[in-house]
């Protein structure tokens, strides 16, 4: 799992900067932030969208694509914020790389949000066809 996250992040933002922080990013920050935001929180947000907002709540008020996009953006914002927060928590050397990493994390959260959507949407009462 560590290597998957390392591959994903370094694919778009390159090796950690400054290089001395490489072990910290690769063995702590990448897997922790990836696991929590991309997998856990994103899956939770998708489930909330499809099975709380569009299932338990009976009205089809939130079934439009822009509602879906709104939740995706909220999830991306959480992914961005959590990445920055987690870097600071681990006292990583301040560098623009922290923000590049947060952007990458937000980007991947959107990708994962889409993937989880495709996976979960079919059992939703009101949003089985959202976003398409």
């Amino acid at each position, binding site marked *: 799992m560590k290597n998957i996250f390392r591959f994903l992040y370094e694919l778009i933002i390159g090796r950690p900067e*400054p*290089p*001395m922080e*490489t072990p910290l990013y690769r063995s702590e920050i990448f897997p922790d932030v990836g696991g929590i935001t991309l997998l856990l929180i994103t899956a939770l947000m998708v489930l909330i969208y499809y099975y709380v907002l569009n299932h338990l709540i009976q009205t089809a008020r939130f079934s439009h694509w822009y509602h879906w996009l709104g939740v995706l953006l909220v999830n991306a914002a959480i992914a961005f914020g959590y990445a920055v927060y987690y870097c600071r928590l681990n006292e990583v*050397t301040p560098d623009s790389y922290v923000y590049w990493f947060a952007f990458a994390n937000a980007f991947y959260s959107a990708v994962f949000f889409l993937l989880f959507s495709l996976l979960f949407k079919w059992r939703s009462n009101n949003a089985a066809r959202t976003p398409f």
Partner: protein
Amino acid sequence: MCLSACSNGDDTSSGSESTACGNQTPPPLAEQLDTVNIIIETSGSMKGFMPTQNRQTAFQQQVDDLLANAEGDKDNIRRLRLFTAQNNIRPIGYDHFQSMLRQGLAKAGNSTPIPDLLSQIASSYSGTGQVSVFISDFIYSPPNERDRDYISNDIRRALAPLQAKGLAVAVYGFTSEFQGTFYPAGSKSGDDAAPVTNCCETEVPYYVWIIGAEPSVRLASNILIPGNAPVAMQAGFDRSEPSYGVIPGSGRSGSWYLADAEGKTIFVDNTQELRQGEVSFTVGLNLEALPTQYATKEYLSEHLEVEGRNGRAQVQDVMSAQAFSEGERLNAKDRQLLECYTHLVKIQVTGMGDRNSPIALNMSLPAQNPDWTDAWTTDDDRDINETGARTFALNEILEGLRALYPNEREAVFTLDLSIRKAN
């Protein structure tokens, strides 16, 4: 509120400081000195340091300081004994010693060759609980012309009992005005030397040798010579590997990183950088326990060697920890780590062999005479005013002292580092 926050912050930082340095053992230091023998050579050649008429010399002031330091520290020095060394070493009363030092040396004795005096000290004035402090100009003129080639062996033989007893020697060099007759040793070519009267326009060196067990020598040096002497060397100290480690974030180039907090293995993702000489890093060393002559920036710069297996590397720079902290752009995370080290060595990797095998670097410091000895030694002291403040064959005297100890033939330290490709 700010006060409590600040003090809290301080507490945590000082708490983690000890762990950051790992388990560094401080140099051995005796708790107390049982007996300190101060032995001052009073042969004719020393008279110029303690003239009866003219102004005070630096020698008189410095030796008086040393005496005052010894007397002043009753907690650490239980018994202080004073001696003069002419033909033999004789005890002398405190008042007599001080008047001789301050009023001048009225009656100088015959001179005795330095090895004889050293031999007496090594056999009779050294042992458990004793530290002997020998003050002399160390002008050694072998009685026989042909013996001039054997000075270092003469010294080594004289001091032989020290090695058997496991005792160390610290040498401190000073210079002082000299007013009187100077008795040169002569020249290496064996030419006779005539005494130089009304000497000297130049200062003349003299030396303080502190002889005893290492922890006692360290304590005695701290007490007696607290403001460092111009030059110093120690021999016979135990060798322990200095603690060391690569500094992760400062004084570096290339995209390497450390394998762990120990700082002895460097990982690289891209070996191309190694081949192109783009990788450099800084190693912190704690040389606190080393003999002082080895822990100078000059000695390290000149003698420190880095050898590589499966790669090449060179020493780029040697810095004191303070100079490094002030000169480099420090990564804030390194600040605490730097407090563990006294010196920093910047190393550049200049090439690599097989890129799938690690590079093993070996950093070693050969043991040689201190750098300062060349500037303090001469082969011909007949014209001391021309020669300047130099001592006849000093480098051989010190070589003889160093030759006494087997560990002086080995490297002062050898430290290993490795650079490997990360998985």
